[in-house]
């Protein structure tokens, strides 16, 4: 890959033939000494990269692992109600559990309350059961009254009196299902499988987030942006790749300037440009074209336009570097053999430019899949993509399990798309400078 041979910073003193320094007596010794020396050189070669690799391992790979762990961790119910979940494993799920289980649950709710794990339990139950938090808290509150604590029937009556949902199957089936520390619950939720039930145990009609349509929307917006950046970027890359020195530098500068301008500032400029009393609407009104301002901001259109502007350099730069390597003479030869200009381009130039188009397109698509900032600021509520919901579940709803499961889905999807890209990115990413 690199133009020079076996040289490097940490090889300078090792280039004397290894055999000379090894014991001259036996061949075996020499061979093992060479191997040892070669191992030593490999270690020395890798040594300078070690700090960054350790850093990335510690602060990127392990955190990504903890996302996976969080997405599978689901221990709140079992932690707060260990004996109840165990006892419920014998329950058939049809009728109500026996009064002894009510008593066990009641005692565990009281223990959970004094251990401070009642609210986490309520939150977790609430993910799966409508009004789950309230059912847990009301049930616990109902136990503070005066009743015969030795009689299981008393516990049952108090719980159902405080919250009728304890007399239905829903809450019990949720508790029964979570008798372990790990489950695929957050993944089922994040892949759009209906997880919420009502107190009567039936599937809840209440649908909070339609993750499948969010994924579809993410893919759709990314595809549209990628397609349009290729359509716009291809001619731009072609002209830049085929311009001579000064002209190419100027054109490249126009591509790179927004590229190196703050992403936030570019997004802000779209807001200023498109908002209701913004520049574009005022210009239109000033020209007498429009009396009513157009609502351009917080629309799908604004999201896509702003994303195109921000992604275009990523698409164009790999294209340019591939196009620059295409021999000019081949197109000339095709022309001299009678092909028209467009035919010559389509049959000679375009096929050779495809790797650049693919690399630019893939890079853009992968970056679009995870795009957060611009859609969050420029798009409306119905234009938000997966990243937005990851941020929202992390920072606002504090549902880290779901945020993690969404992240895993996003990473896996982006990884599948990005895999063929990795080598190419490594090779061409220096072009952006």
């Amino acid at each position: 890959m690199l133009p020079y041979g076996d040289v490097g910073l940490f090889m300078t003193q090792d280039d004397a033939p290894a055999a000379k320094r090894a014991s001259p007596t036996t061949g075996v010794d020499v061979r093992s000494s060479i191997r040892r020396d070669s191992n030593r050189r490999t270690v020395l070669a890798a040594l300078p990269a070690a700090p960054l690799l350790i850093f990335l391992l510690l602060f990127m790979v392990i955190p990504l692992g903890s996302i996976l762990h969080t997405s599978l961790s689901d221990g709140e119910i079992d932690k707060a109600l260990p004996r109840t979940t165990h006892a419920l494993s014998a329950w058939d799920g049809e009728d109500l559990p026996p009064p002894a289980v009510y008593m066990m649950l009641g005692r565990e709710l009281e223990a959970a309350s004094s251990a401070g794990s009642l609210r986490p339990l309520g939150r977790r139950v609430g993910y799966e059961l409508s009004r789950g938090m309230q059912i847990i808290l009301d049930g616990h509150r109902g136990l503070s009254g005066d009743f015969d604590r030795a009689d299981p029937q008393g516990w049952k009556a108090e719980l159902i009196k405080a919250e009728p949902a304890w007399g239905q199957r829903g809450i019990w089936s949720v508790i029964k299902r979570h008798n372990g520390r790990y489950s695929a619950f957050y993944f089922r939720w994040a892949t759009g499988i209906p997880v919420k039930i009502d107190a009567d145990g039936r599937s809840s009609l209440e649908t909070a987030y339609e993750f499948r349509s969010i994924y579809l929307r993410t893919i759709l917006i990314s595809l549209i942006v990628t397609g349009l950046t290729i359509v716009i970027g291809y001619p731009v890359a072609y002209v830049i790749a085929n311009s001579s020195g000064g002209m190419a530098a100027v054109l490249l500068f126009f591509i790179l300037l927004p590229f190196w301008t703050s992403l936030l500032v570019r997004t802000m400029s779209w807001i200023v440009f498109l908002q209701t009393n913004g520049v574009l609407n005022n210009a239109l009104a000033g020209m007498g074209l429009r009396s009513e301002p157009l609502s351009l901001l917080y629309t799908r259109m604004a999201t896509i336009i702003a994303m195109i502007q921000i992604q275009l350099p990523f698409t164009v730069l790999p294209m340019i570097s591939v196009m620059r390597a295409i021999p000019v003479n081949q197109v000339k030869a095709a022309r001299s053999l009678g092909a028209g200009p467009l035919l010559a381009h389509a049959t000679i130039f375009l096929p050779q430019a495809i790797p650049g188009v693919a690399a630019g397109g893939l890079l853009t698509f992968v970056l679009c899949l995870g795009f957060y900032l611009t859609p969050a600021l420029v798009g409306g509520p119905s234009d938000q993509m997966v990243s937005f919901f990851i941020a929202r579940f992390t920072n606002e709803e504090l549902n880290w399990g779901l945020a993690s499961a969404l992240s895993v889905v996003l990473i896996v999807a982006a990884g599948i798309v990005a895999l063929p890209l990795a080598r190419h990115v490594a090779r061409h990413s220096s072009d952006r400078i």
Partner: protein
Amino acid sequence: MSRRVYSEFPAYIRIPLYAFVGIALLLLMLPLAVALPISINADPWFTYPFRAISLRWFTQLFSSPLWTGAMVNSLVIAVSTTAVATILGTLAAIGLVNPRFPFRAAVMALAISPMIVPVVVLGLGLFIFFSPLGLNYSFAGVVIAHTILASPFVVITVTATLTRFDFSLMRAAAGLGAGRVTAFRTVMLPIIAPGVAAGAIFAFASSFDEVVMVLFIAGPQQRTVPKQMFTGLREQLDPTILAAAAVMILLTSCLMAVAYNANRKR
């Protein structure tokens, strides 16, 4: 230069092609070109033409403790990030250009992956990882997060510089009795310095502009300029934000110009 393939195209294709490219490049610049001058509009409207020009938004920017505090935070975080990312990235690049490096392609992909992995996912991962360590809502946490995002820029830039470095110079230095560290300090570093400087500048710019990690990791004590702008854009857009943007653009374009020149000279 004889690479004028487009001259192979007849005028009826060439002229629309040029026009298309020209318009596309102009549209790329249009929102910025239109938005930034509004920072010197005396009136708090986002419209043209201006009735008067004034620097009142800049005055407001530099007199507001919220903004000046954010600027100090941004500078502290960006400078620390630059220092860490430049050292880690330069060393890694030196290792990675060595053909002997084991699993070089895979390691290079790992080193560059923070550019591709969605920032919200990195932010969530660090947030979860940091909570038991107490690094959330701390300067150290933000610097670590930014270093992850900034180091690929250094690795890429320095690797590109090193591919043009003549490694026989290192042998020559060794032949003259220099140890590895001396050879690195007196021979390699001065030659690759422009590339390292460019990498450092990109690292600085990426940290100075970063907001998503800050949203995840930082607390009110680590409020940066981008965070302040983000909040303003979400709640109430006022021209002070445009003044802040203008200052940011000015700073980063000065730095970029330095980086560009450093890279051209090498």
